[in-house]
């Protein structure tokens, strides 16, 4: 691991920031832990929890906007991680590598989205999630977090800036807050179909920019 650190440090010299290699190093650690999880290693699970739980709890809290729901969701998410660790594919032919943390965040987001959508379909979506946002502690990003966010999100941020303003906001809000088309349409005060068209055009433009 020490050699890896040295290598990452070397690599970072050629870059604008060393933060990306920090997350690479974390991904290597996570990949190792997940390999051990696949062999049913409980101590690896404990370590993985310590490393990943704050981030994943942040995801559940942000999307579900309810502390109890987020706590329940986090439990389910880690049960899924334990059961699916063998399915983690760090990289695959013809596509870029998916980082360990990104894989874990995807599980937490997917689970949160399933909860949000099933709640709406049961008709319990009447309570306005926006009221609850105010109750949550919402610490602004500290400079370090802001730097990390800026570093890891730089490429997509540039592409988002090229989109008409409302579309970038809608994409970001859908991804981060878990809003459905209905909710996005209501928030932007446009018909559902208009929202869908906007968002799809935004996504297509984003894809073209990211793959450029």
């Amino acid at each position: 691991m020490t050699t890896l650190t040295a290598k990452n440090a070397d690599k970072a010299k050629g870059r604008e920031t060393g933060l990306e290699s920090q997350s690479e190093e974390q991904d290597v650690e996570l990949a190792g832990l997940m390999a051990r999880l696949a062999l049913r290693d409980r101590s690896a699970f404990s370590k993985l929890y310590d490393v990943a739980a704050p981030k994943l709890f942040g995801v559940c809290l942000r999307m579900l906007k309810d502390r109890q729901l987020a706590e329940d969701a986090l439990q389910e998410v880690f049960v899924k991680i334990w059961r699916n660790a063998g399915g983690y594919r760090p990289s695959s032919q013809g596509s870029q590598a998916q980082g360990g943390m990104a894989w874990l965040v995807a599980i937490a987001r997917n689970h949160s989205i399933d909860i949000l959508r099933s709640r709406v379909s049961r008709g319990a979506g009447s309570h306005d999630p926006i009221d609850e946002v105010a109750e949550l502690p919402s610490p602004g990003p500290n400079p370090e977090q802001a730097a990390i966010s800026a570093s890891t999100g730089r490429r997509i941020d540039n592409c988002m800036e090229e989109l008409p303003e409302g579309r970038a906001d809608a994409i970001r809000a859908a991804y981060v807050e878990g809003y459905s088309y209905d909710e996005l349409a209501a928030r932007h005060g446009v018909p559902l179909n208009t929202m869908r068209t906007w968002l799809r055009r935004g996504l297509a433009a984003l894809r073209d920019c990211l793959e450029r």
Partner: protein
Amino acid sequence: MKDALERDDGNDRDMLAAEYVLGVLEPSQRQFANRLIAQEPEFSRLVEAWGNHLAQLDGEFLEKRPPEHLKTAIEDRLFATTSPAARRSGVSSFWRPLALVTTALLLLLGGLYAYDMSRLIPVAGDRLVATLSSDGNEFSAVVLIDAGSRELLVTPVKAEIAEDRDLELWLIRDGAAPAPIGLVATGAPSRLPISPEAARQILDGDTFALSIEPKGGSPTGQPTGPVVAAGKVKKI
């Protein structure tokens, strides 16, 4: 809506994948997309690509420490061996420490016995791990062996090779020729069968290495292609 979705139009599929990852689909469309992921590798690749794109937004999620009791609750749920009924009646909270002590004693006795047999033979429950990396960091992988198990798990972290090549794993010990262990997949963890004798011979300080070989592995029994990653075995 469904007709439009089921039309086999590449761009529609790509948009569906994007909407799926974004999470904006209605439950029925979401289920449809889930079925496609299971059935169509091409769609599942689109979803993966969008997942990678949009994961760049993950920095927006700020870390928040969960309450301490959650970890215990999850571990209880995953690892508790007693029935839920026993847990509710409080039986397990009485017996569990006792069971743990007994297990620990057994392991210790087993360990002492094995230690006595030979200092070189890893005791039951030993686990060896090797983190393989390359100078340029283009390749890395994690190798894990359980002393008791008959397989070795190799998880590639970064391993892209030409399609007409295979990655082969070698065990290298000081003063001995590399021993071939098996071929390793590049995109998914590989479980390589290993005999208990061979597993016992892997020791703290040995080296695992990956080399690029012709399809099917080295024709000579020794590495013929470049060694792209290597790492020492550590007991954990």
